[in-house]
């Protein structure tokens, strides 16, 4: 009797090399998204911008760097917030390099591990972006509190009355919200006036007050 043929299937492991390549892809996409108009969002879809589409298609295969980058750029341009703001050359460069590195990575791993690799890129990038978004919001929150303290000279009572808040509301407990938020749209006239002034103040500092989508804390 001939010897039985035995095979051993080894599960794909994330080697150091693969980890470094994932890290590089994340770094490039992160750099690109730094120039994407949405800085903070509660939905993953909004936060990841065109990169989400790139990842989806990379997983599906049959795409090359240039068309995929072009597809992503078109999505970028279609975002209403991006209108009138051309994509910078460095952003295009990062997007292209990131897409290329991703496609190369996808081709170098077994097909069975493809979804896992793309998932790694997806969620690592998401974490990095979300963390930046939270830090951005935290910074704006502090700026808003300081600004309101200055405006109302620390008078919590006067502030609560002007903004139509419950008795006992404190300036120090406020959070940042954008001009399209429910809080802004449903706020008192004084709230809107204050926030408009604050948005103007932010713009003066070179910030984009509207670079936040659905950011209100409940």
């Amino acid at each position, binding site marked *: 009797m001939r010897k039985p043929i035995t095979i051993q299937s080894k599960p794909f492991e994330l080697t150091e090399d693969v980890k470094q390549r994932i890290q590089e892809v994340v770094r490039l996409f992160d750099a690109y998204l730094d120039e994407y108009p949405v800085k903070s969002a509660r939905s993953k879809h909004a936060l990841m911008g065109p990169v989400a589409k790139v990842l989806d298609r990379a997983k599906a295969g049959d795409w090359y760097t240039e068309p995929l980058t072009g597809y992503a750029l078109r999505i970028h341009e279609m975002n209403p917030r991006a209108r009138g703001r051309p994509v910078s050359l460095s952003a295009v460069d990062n997007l292209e390099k990131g897409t290329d590195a991703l496609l190369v990575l996808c081709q170098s791993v077994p097909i069975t591990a493809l979804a896992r690799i793309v998932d790694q890129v997806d*969620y690592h990038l998401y974490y990095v972006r979300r963390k930046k978004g939270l830090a951005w919001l935290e910074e704006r929150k502090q700026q808003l509190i300081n600004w309101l303290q200055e405006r109302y000279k620390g008078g919590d009572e006067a502030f609560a009355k002007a903004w139509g808040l419950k008795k006992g509301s404190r300036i120090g407990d406020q959070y940042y919200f954008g001009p399209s938020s429910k809080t802004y749209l449903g706020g008192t006239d004084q709230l809107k006036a204050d926030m408009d002034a604050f948005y103007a103040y932010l713009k003066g500092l070179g910030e984009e007050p509207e670079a936040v989508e659905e950011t209100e804390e409940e």
Partner: protein
Amino acid sequence: MNYQTVHKDALEWMIGRGWKRKWGKKGEFTQSLLEHTDVELNTLFTLLPILEHPLHYNLTKSEKQAIIVGTIAHDVGKETDEWQEYVQLPRAEQRKRFVPHIILELTQATVPQLVEHLGFAPEIIEDAIAFVNIHMAAVRTPTAMMGLIQSRREGSSRWATLARVVDVVDNLCSAKGPFAAMEVLKDSLLSQHLHATYHLVQIRGVSTTMLHRAAMEAFAEAGWSPLLHFSKGTIYVADSRVSALEPSPDTIQARFAKLLDGALTIENAPQLVVGRNFSTSVIAKPELFNPALLSRYLDVASTRMRTAPFLTGYTVKPDSNPEMQATVQEKRRNLVQAYLEIRDDLPDHGLDEKIIEQQIQRFAEAQPEMGMWVLFSAAVKDGLIPHPKAPFEEVFGDGSYEQFQKCPKQRQYVNNMVYGVELFWGLSGHRLGLEIERVEQLEPKRRLALLRQTLVDIANQAQEKADHGSVASYGIAKDVTQLLMVDLIHPAKSIDLTQTAHCQLEAYLDSKEQAKKENAKPHICPICNAEFPGGDAAKEDFVTGVESHTNRALAHGRFGYIVICEACKYERYLRQLLLGERPPNVLVLFPRMNIGYHSGELLRRKAIQIQEIGSTLMSVDTANPNERLTLALTNLIARRLVDGDSEANWLVRAVEHGLEPTELIELMTYDLTDDKQKEYRRELEKALRDEYEFKKGEEDVAILNEEWETNFPDWETAVQAVAERQVRNQTVDEIWADAQKLRPIFRVVCHTPHMILVPLSGVFKNRKLVSQFFVGNDSDTNAALRELFVTLLLGLALDCSVAVIDSGEPITLEGGEGVARVPSVPAVRELIGSDWVGLTEAPMWLRRIGAAGLLARATAYPESSNLYQILSAPTPGHILRRIEQKQKGQVYMNQLPLIEAVIEPIKEVSHA
């Protein structure tokens, strides 16, 4: 020179330099730099009193100080980042890029600081520096030595010899195991100044801690000082000027027997000896029966048959279905009829309900006494106490012993009543000096006490009169000691190795066939692998999985219970005796490889201190009844351990400094929620009502005031006073502690520096007693992670190896394994990647599991597996997204460090 003060100051200095989290040894075993140096310092403190003698080295104070400083600082070069990086490389790579740990500049800078810290004279600096720089034979090259000779200005004239003392101590403490250490000592220059010997045991379990203690005591008595403890034994030294003889195995055995004797008569022994179910087994462990404890056995027996459960079974419940009612009616009638028939007292007109009820009540009242009679009968019939015919008949009258012989040794109500209880109840009160006609009329509690005393007196008289040749005399401790002495490997009596090998071979040849057969043919014990001439089938009572698969008996014999050797059986009996009633698992603390005498004692004291503080907190004496201890609530422990700013971070303190017992307890303490406090208050009220037989709304405070000698105006005030601990007596204390669910969750029972055993209480899950690490619906995996978290914390805080073993599991830990053993749950072992967590990974895993505990609520994963799900998430983004999905998009900035503690994110890159 006060060595204890020097030790304390030296520890402070080493901890200050971060030596607790730095590697000192890696290879055959792992030690932190602090541990390694501490062991050497301990060893030196034991050696110096001998070496300083004028007939040995005649050491001056300066020389002693220089040797101490040299020993503490000898590995200072290992604290550098380069060496730390080097030591963690694989061995093959280490060869390619050697990093020395003797750095002259570092020694030059460090030694003066240390000398100043210890308050020693500056003149010793030059010697101490030399000791550090030439403490390894490899660096004592002619060039180096000549250089030193030329550069020396002051110090001892025999610095080169003294430097070799530092070298020997280093080699001695770096040896893996007692044999290797003995070899170092014998081949060293100290051999002419010291006698050295050792005791060595085979680790079996709790009996090993007693054997260690017996050996240590015997050696100390013979004039030996313990030098180094390993989990398997101790090395001892004595001054070579005096003749020190090794204690004989018989001396150790005598001490061992004494310790065992004490263990066999400890408080909970009767609970284990007396069976739980009197209809099947009355004396569960006849081997441990000690007639001297009969009084306590009888007490336990009186609780095994109780009035209330009897009445429950023999009372017709009006709300039960008619069939059930008829069955109970029939049972009642049958019992009474059988009883009256034996007594020949059946009424002519037959049984009516009144007679039945009257007799059932008598049976119910007789239950505790019946329990005593059943036990006494079993003890007599099994030959555990001599036949007490004469003293028995002296009390109960002529012919009574013949009657008593018919009293069954199991629970059989009718015969137990007629041939036991009624012999006693029928006694004349006047004869016993009581103002009643029959003993039956006596108040039940007094009657029970009287019966106990009567039976004990009868047994004692029988024992005195008995011919010792015909009855079983109590010598169990001696027998058990004899069996367990096989674990003492040195010093031991010489054996005929050829004969032993022959016996082993013979047993091995038949081992498969005999594995599950109870006969007198040679066996191999499936637990300890020793050959033995036949034994008993293991019971589930003391061995887990007695029917489980064994490689032996693979193709032979029926599928029965495994047969284990007597030594293993008694080891398990002892565990139950010492560790309490079958704790589901035991926490074992032991040195990572070796430990010095002083540090060993320190570790032992710390364990005892933890026990003392913990037991106060978990008892009626607690100062704050709303405080509780937990080992299982990972999030509560992690709250302070992982969270918080760096200054207050307990984890950093645990890793870099170690924690004191009070700090450890503080970490594990939490406050009850308001809801829980209210619940316990309600339970207290209910328990008080039950105790004093009050119906709700009909509480009589006058009864309480009379019993408590108080003056409460109403029930509410009285209950409040109990809740606030203003009323204290034994009954109230017990009720209060029960209502508050105050019970010990661990006890430190066996402790020597070699091994500390801490039985952990269990919790009931689906009616099965399981480890206390199960919280709510925890899966095995989640509970294993909680267990690992606590063992890591203890291992890091107390600088020792920690493992949790199942109560029936053999203890096979030898030291050198790591900080904490990973529970044997496949998913957890796969997650961690090894069976033990080592020194480097321990803080990381402690932080990871702790952070997972803190994120558990926010991620809202199923309670059964939340910790595992978080820890096995592929990226931090997965955890973050999960939190957002479950918390309406809400995630807080302070959750991000926790997520990053669980999984390190890809490093952020700053973009221009």
